[in-house]
């Protein structure tokens, strides 16, 4: 398995580096419309052809990848922090706090995600720039995506509550806040890291789902979701296999994250 993990790490690194080099690799940008060459097949000028309104598909893939690979971890960081705060504190305090926090978590888990996202998206102000729209999209994902992690962290923190080292710390008169920060959080680190790592591909896929529905990142900014929209017309895709490249890349990246995660879990174990 080690070789696969190394390959996964290498692939993620390569994809990230290439996407960060988008300005040099695709200097014309993701928004320029080559209207005379709309829907063109791959060529020396357009390596993956152009989309339906003539934008270079390769450039859009690079910029879209950059957005997903930078913002999905950022959203994962926000959601994991929220999970640590809500789940960790509730588990540490126990009793009514734990019951209350878990009830809220259950409520969030029972909500239909997609409809909730569509509703929240509909309530957003209309006049936001594409950059703000992408930030807001990932922020919404983060604000709604902390619940599963919170349950795991709550259980982990609860299991530590009666640990001997905590009793000793309490007996020594250490305050609750300090106890939580010094003794609980460090012990939650493996779970936190695992939850953070799990969230990244989940957010990437969630954005892709929203994008396919046309409710994700605003035009002309690309994202994997908006790139995958090209696959919605099954009939027209058959003869244009290069349209599958964003999908292949998405699968490769998500799989790589999973492979790297399993490695981290082993290390943590």
């Amino acid at each position, binding site marked *: 398995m080690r070789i696969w993990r190394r390959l996964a790490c290498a692939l993620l690194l390569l994809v990230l580096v290439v996407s960060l080099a988008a300005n040099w690799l695709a200097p014309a940008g993701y*928004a320029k*419309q080559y*209207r005379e060459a*709309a*829907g063109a097949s791959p060529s020396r000028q357009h390596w993956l052809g152009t989309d*339906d*309104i*003539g934008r270079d598909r390769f450039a859009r893939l690079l910029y879209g990848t950059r957005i997903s690979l930078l913002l999905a971890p950022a959203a994962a960081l926000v959601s994991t922090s929220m999970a640590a705060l809500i789940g960790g504190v509730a588990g540490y305090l126990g009793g009514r706090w734990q019951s209350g926090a878990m009830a809220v978590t259950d409520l969030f888990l029972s909500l239909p995600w997609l409809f909730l996202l*569509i509703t929240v*998206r*509909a309530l957003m102000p*209309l*006049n*936001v*720039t*594409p950059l703000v*729209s992408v930030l807001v999209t990932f922020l919404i994902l983060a604000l709604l995506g902390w619940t599963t992690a919170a349950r795991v962290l709550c259980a982990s923190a609860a299991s530590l509550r009666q640990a001997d080292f905590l009793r000793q710390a309490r007996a020594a008169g250490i305050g609750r806040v300090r106890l939580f920060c010094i003794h609980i959080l460090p012990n939650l680190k493996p779970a936190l890291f695992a939850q953070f790592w799990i969230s990244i591909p989940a957010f990437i896929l969630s954005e892709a789902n929203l994008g396919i*529905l*046309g*409710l994700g990142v*605003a*035009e*002309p900014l690309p994202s994997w979701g908006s790139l995958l*929209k090209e696959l*919605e*017309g*099954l*009939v*027209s895709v058959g003869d244009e296999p290069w349209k599958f490249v964003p999908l292949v890349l998405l699968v490769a990246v998500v799989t790589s994250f999973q492979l790297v995660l399993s490695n981290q879990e082993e290390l943590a174990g």
Partner: protein
Amino acid sequence: MSKRTILISLVCLAILAGSAFAQGELRFCLRSEPKTFDPMKVEDDASVAIRYLTGGTLVRMNRQTQALEAELAEAWKVSKDSKQITFKLRSGISFSDGTPFSAEDVAYTVQQLMDPALHSPTGDAFRSGPGKVETKIISPTQISLTFPAPIAALDRQFDQVAILSSHSPKKEMAVLGPFMVAEYKAGTSVVLKRNANYWKADAQGHKLPYLDSIKLDIQPNRDVEMLRFTRNEIDLINSLDSDYFDKLASSSPQLVHDAGPSLDSEQMWFNQVAKAPLPGYKKEWFRSATFRRAISTAINRADLSRVVFRGHAKPAAGPVSPANKYWFNAKLTPPAYTPDGALKALQAEGFHLEKGTLKDKYDNPVVFSILTNSGNKYRERMATMIQEDLQKIGIQVNVVTLDFPSLIERVTQTFNYEAILLGLTNVGLDPNEEMNVWLSSSENHQWNPQQKAPETAWEAEIDRLMRLQAATSDLKKRKEAFDRVQEIVVEQSPFIYLVNRNALSAVSSSVHGANPVILVPQTYWNMDRLSVN
């Protein structure tokens, strides 16, 4: 040969002769579940399709020539005041269940049509004023109908009215059209069988329709519809997407038909509602005809047609498509693409360019959002192209896609939007069918609906002209009035008309007699004369 053998042979020949032209089953898809089989309650597209195939009408508009033709009525006469119509009916016609057709059935149908308790959507076109409709049965084959107020194009309104039987125990299931509903499986299919009592025959005297049956599969997914067509599982597709059209055309060009610009239009408009929750300076832009016209001329319509619709659309000249042969104002042409001219016009209005950004006289950057419904790839593409076109004159456009209910809520209730890009599907040809769009008091006067009194002089003039054309039966006067309405709409640009989509369809090579047209139902408007191998 014995006498008995000869007799059997003769009987067989007679049966074969009778069914020689009853040919096969035609299959195509309905894109939604039909909500009703009662022709009086029809509102949705699927039910309209079934009414077209099963209902017998007094007159019918020929979808190819757009002329009104005699059907169950062999002649008709409209009074000068457009309040009364007298029909002379054909005799010897029976409903599908065998009950005879007479003037009583027409009277019964009109009574149902105008019944306030039933509130037939088809009857809306006849509710021109308060009061009752008078029906006078002159003889079993002659009837006169008098409406309380004038109805423009009164005879044409009967194209949508399927005649019901006043005596049949089968009620609305007894029909006078070429087919009748034989089987309905909710969510799956509707099967129509040939109406053996259908009154029409072809030039050779063979009874119509030729087809034995029609199978209508309920299939909302257009990809699946297309796949089924390519697998020969269905025979027709109406309103084909331009992407699919080109795909099919590349492999089987003989199967696809581009009938030219349809009645449908794609358009955008700015929010001009006074109470809209928008900053004052933006309302000022949107209420300026110069601003709207400048935006209109800064949009490259030719590119929209060529790129978004792959050439299967034409730049729109105004509110009426050239497909509407009579009512289209031929003096109008699509606005020329002149970004420089647009910029000059805006500069004359106090706007100025500053470091590539257009600013108004108060120094506010010109930024607005265009809202469209998510999931419609053509509108999303158009909005993105308009975004780039307007960027060239320093305007920043934010494209926002929303689910349809949220979008409609903003248009009709909260008025919380800046610009909208949507399409309009037109079925009728007569301007009266657009009264609900053009009258300033109407709910569907989208840029500024339900005005208590017209807020601008040009809207007052449109109101006057629309009422004028509705109140007269003089076709020339009506045409003059509606031509002027079209000119005002182009001058003021409350709607910025972008393109008219072409009527695209696909017909299997096994179907004979198909002649797709621009009007609905494109491929099967002459269904009684279609046959399948």
